[in-house]
């Protein structure tokens, strides 16, 4: 493509940012020149001491449950929100109750799908298909409409391989990598899965590849204890690739079946962090190990950004499956429907709580029904 164009874009960016940075740092310098407001010294009550000079602990505060009068937002807006918090159930009731088939039915279904984070594009596609069937008189009853939607969605999730890949081989541990943005539940998922795998008779080692976040290795350490897995960690701020490499080596030498590699949460927009992840992926296979699963952990509350996450992480590390977490909450996790149907990454596991047993295999029928439930 046009050399000039690329150069131009670069030139514009360099100029824009160069000038922009100059301006901002001047502004900040000006700000820093302003003197800080002097702090007021609060009255400090002297610590209570008993006769013998030891500090006396304050008696525990009695926690009284007050009858709180909770101020609510303007009644009309809040009411509207509550009423219109249409779950599929609400939508279904509407469709069935109305009898016949009308635009309102499609509005109800559209709202329900959007509320589940299925996304505008996919929603339009699904409903467009149903409209065609209605026009062709292949759907004439409300119940058929609802069944049609459920069938269509279920069929789009059919036929995927949802198994966790494991290739037995002595001295060559399987490596399952866990990637994703910050706060989605990678470490907790590892703990739960390690527990399951150990329960199934495999030996597991956890590699604390999150060397950035404060106390991340300690967090994983707790899960190692709880699940009975071994753990390898490195120094804080160290190179994550080395930790994982060391983990794999240790597993190889001790004939451990499976290494679960934790990585730091990272936003896919950070090029340097994504490069780091690519390196981690490469290094994980440099030694004796084979990466047989790269699991992208996605939070069920995530909106359309989940699709971007799947694309970016998929491109960087060849994601083989998705773990959908926090589905025990109010969010429907509909974004993973888009992830699987549009990007083709199968959803393999679902997290449904914070305790060690709260991890189940993904069942498309259950998932779609749950979208339509409650």
């Amino acid at each position, binding site marked *: *493509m046009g*050399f000039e*164009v*690329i*150069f131009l*874009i*670069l030139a*514009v*960016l360099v*100029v*824009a*940012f*160069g000038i922009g*940075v*100059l*301006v*901002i740092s*001047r502004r900040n310098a000006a700000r820093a020149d302003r003197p800080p407001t002097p702090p*007021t010294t*609060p009255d*400090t009550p002297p610590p209570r001491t008993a006769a013998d000079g030891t500090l006396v602990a304050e008696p525990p505060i009695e*926690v*009284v*449950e007050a009858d709180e009068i*909770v101020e609510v*937002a303007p009644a009309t*807006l809040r009411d*509207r*929100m509550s009423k*219109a*918090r249409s779950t599929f159930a609400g939508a279904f009731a509407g469709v069935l109750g109305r009898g016949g088939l009308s635009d309102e039915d499609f509005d109800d279904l559209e709202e329900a799908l959007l509320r*589940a*984070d299925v996304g*505008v594009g996919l929603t339009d596609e699904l409903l467009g298909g149903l409209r065609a069937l209605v026009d062709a008189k292949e759907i004439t009853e409300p119940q058929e409409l609802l069944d049609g939607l459920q069938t269509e969605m279920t069929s789009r999730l059919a036929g995927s391989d949802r198994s966790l890949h494991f290739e037995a081989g002595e001295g060559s541990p399987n490596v399952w990598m866990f990637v994703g*943005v*910050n*706060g989605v539940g990678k470490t907790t998922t590892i703990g739960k899965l390690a527990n399951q795998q150990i329960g199934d008779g495999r030996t597991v080692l956890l590699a604390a590849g999150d060397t950035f*976040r404060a*106390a*991340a290795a*300690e*967090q994983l350490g707790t899960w190692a204890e709880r699940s009975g897995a071994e753990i390898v960690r490195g120094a804080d701020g160290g190179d994550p690739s080395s930790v994982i490499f060391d983990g794999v080596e240790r597993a190889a030498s001790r004939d451990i079946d499976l290494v679960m590699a934790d990585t730091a949460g990272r*936003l896919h*927009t*950070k*090029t340097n962090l994504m490069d780091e992840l690519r390196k981690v992926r490469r290094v994980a296979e440099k030694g004796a190990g084979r990466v047989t699963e790269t699991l992208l952990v996605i939070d069920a*509350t*995530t*909106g*359309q950004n*989940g699709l*971007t996450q799947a694309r970016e992480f998929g491109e960087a590390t060849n994601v083989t499956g998705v773990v959908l977490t*926090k589905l*025990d*909450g*109010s*969010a*429907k996790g509909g*974004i993973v429907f888009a992830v699987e149907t549009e990007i083709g990454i199968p959803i393999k596991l679902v997290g449904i709580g*914070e305790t060690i047993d709260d991890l189940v295999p993904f069942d498309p029928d259950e998932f779609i029904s749950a979208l339509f439930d409650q």
Partner: protein
Amino acid sequence: MFDNLSTRLEGIVKKIRGKGRLTEADVDEVMKEIRTALLEADVNVTAVRSICNRIREHAIGATRSQSLDPGQQVIKAVSDELTRALGGETLSITYASRPPTVVLMAGLQGSGKTTAAAKLALWFKGQGRQPLLVGADLQRPAAVEQLRTLGGQIDVPVFSDPEDPVLTAADGLDEAKRLGRDVLIVDTAGRLSIDVEMMEQVRLISGAVDPDYTFLVIDAMTGQDAVQTAEAFDEILRIDGVIMSKLDGDARGGAALSVKEVIGRPIAFASTGEKLNEFEQFHPDRMASRILGMGDMLTLIEQAEQAFEADEAEEAAARLMDGQFTLDDFLEQMQQLKKMGSIGNLVGMMPGMPKELKGANIDDDDLKPIEAIIRSMTPEERAEPVIINGSRRMRIATGSGTQVGDVNRLVKQFGEMQKMMKKMGGMGSAKRGKKGKRGRGLPPGLDLDPASLDLSSLQGMPDLPGLSGGPPR
């Protein structure tokens, strides 16, 4: 990833412009695009409906005025309405008359409460206060250790007791009084809004410390569920303000709008990174642009400030003005740019980019030839590209795996860019004289008010070489 709203509206607006009267159909078309943009940005379905009803009139009113650029007018009207919806009353901290001022952090698991608590502590320190952090998350493994580590990094004491979260909070309050700390920040465990037991726990914690401020931390990538969460927390706790976290990602952040619509409390802070100083007051106008998918120039620049080594960038910009910008500088700045994210994303995020450039679909790989060519040059060649004669061009082309023609073009383009920059810089030569140092002052011709940097200055730039059609509108 998401079509820019302005691009999408362009087609519609072309039709609208010049019409004396707008039909219902025109109105509907515009609103449809706006609705789609908002939904793609994760704004709650119900909130979208009420917002669209409100902006319908504003947007159409804008196009009725026979203004020169109705497309921009429509977007501006929409953006203004969103800004208003997101902003309004700002939250300014009023400190308790009897210290400590108590702040309670609440939210879902993984939303960023612990990091935000530490950031808030640092922020309060910057305000001259002496905060105490309380680790009342006894649920998640190593949560208290995390807080302790963060506290250590910012030199803020952390209190926790492993026994019970409510007790910890209460004891923490005592500890603050004992130590004479004037701000207490209580971090709590992440909890589901539908978990009755956990919501009761946080209600008890709140009761125990009687917070002056309760902040709900919401992840910028949250989808439709943001409403449900905000409502539930507000019912139990009475939220005073919202903290949006992980805004350094590319999630459009419609959750901000949804939450504001449903609980009506201000969005107090924006958390824009994992480092503890990446915390700032919320800017409704920037958020509005971002939700509409219009890019956020100011945030971009501030991100650039972090990615770019400030001193080097300053010097480079100064040299740019002077016409002393070398290929080395260009290469260096390219590296800084790359740190900021994929060039493709950056281009997409910049408002005011001429359409021809935007549609160019640039890939980071496209930069490789440019980099290679520059790297194949000797330092002298980079400093003085004029010396690059035929044989040098051959050598550079071979060394970089490109054609001689490519080398020619790069040198030519760079020269033209230098000339243009010198022209811009030359506008301020008088002022510079006064300052005594070269290039240290901003040329007056480039009056860039940081508060309203909207690229109009770049838009007004003389023809960029090679661009057909003149400066962007």
